[in-house]
């Protein structure tokens, strides 16, 4: 019995990073907010570096609730898309070059999104991780948590429901 040799580590990494890069860089609003993603295996951490234009209360100062909400929603959508695409990225069925060339896979659509503001967002970098609580054929439910200096002290959390993209063929 012959077993397929696993791909070399750099090929695997390149494929994953290219797919993630295409997913994130294809969306103008993610670029506008300056959000990036750090990847460890299949785990993603979103990063929103501090920028003056994210401020909502100049007197405190504090991040705008809308910037925080957008950060959480971006993290949820990318996290959910990433989890849907993971198997195709691993098998090589998804072509990262086609993705980078603008052939984006259809993204999930937000149905409802609820944000809880737990603490004032400080004028510093923010991080977030999404957890896909349920991913069905038509609907998905995702929970997101965002923090700044201390992982154990989140400044915002959110739960969203999403309409899954149609997977034809």
């Amino acid at each position, binding site marked *: 019995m012959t077993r397929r040799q696993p791909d070399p580590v750099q090929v695997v990494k390149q494929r994953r990073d290219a797919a993630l890069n295409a997913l994130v860089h*294809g*969306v*103008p*609003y*993610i*670029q*506008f*907010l300056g959000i990036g993603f750090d990847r460890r295996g299949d785990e993603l951490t979103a990063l929103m570096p501090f920028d*003056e*234009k*994210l*401020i*909502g*209360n*100049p*007197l405190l100062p*504090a*991040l*705008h*609730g*809308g*910037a925080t*909400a*957008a*950060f959480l*929603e*971006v993290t949820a959508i990318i996290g959910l898309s990433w989890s849907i695409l993971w198997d195709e990225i691993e098998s090589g069925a998804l072509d990262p070059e086609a993705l980078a060339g*603008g052939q*984006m896979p*259809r*993204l999930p*659509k*937000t*149905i*409802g*999104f*609820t*944000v*809880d*503001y737990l603490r*004032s967002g400080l004028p510093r970098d923010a991080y977030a991780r999404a957890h896909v609580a349920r991913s069905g054929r038509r609907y998905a439910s995702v929970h997101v948590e965002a923090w700044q200096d201390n992982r154990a002290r989140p400044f915002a959390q959110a739960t969203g429901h999403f309409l899954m993209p149609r997977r034809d063929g």
Partner: protein
Amino acid sequence: MGLDKTKIAEQFIEAIPHSQALGMELTEIGEGIAEIAMDYDDRFVGDPETGVIHGGAVSALMDTCCGAAAMSHPDNPGATATIDLRIDYMRPATPGQRIRAQAECYHITRSVAFVRARAIDDDPDRPVATATGTFTVEAAQ
């Protein structure tokens, strides 16, 4: 709402860096009501295939507008912060069209302002999104 408070609310909202970055314009403010508009902009697109604005930009608009409504309520002595905000997306906003958020602070206690809002584009009969939220009320002196 007194003329002074209207003026203060207007200046306060227009001084918010994030709202400025998104090109928000306060088009109406009254006793517990507010309307804020945001022009279509390629930089705010969430789906490059369709050109539809990202939900996050609509959230920012809703949050600002709800906060303005909470702040402008006669029983609210000053600044406010969002406690929670829920947004439901009814349909994608039509690409190229301006989005207007209309918010109303429908109840207020000594500690919490309750606000609801809707977002519309050029077709006001079919809202793009609705929102409900709660906001802090500054402790009285």
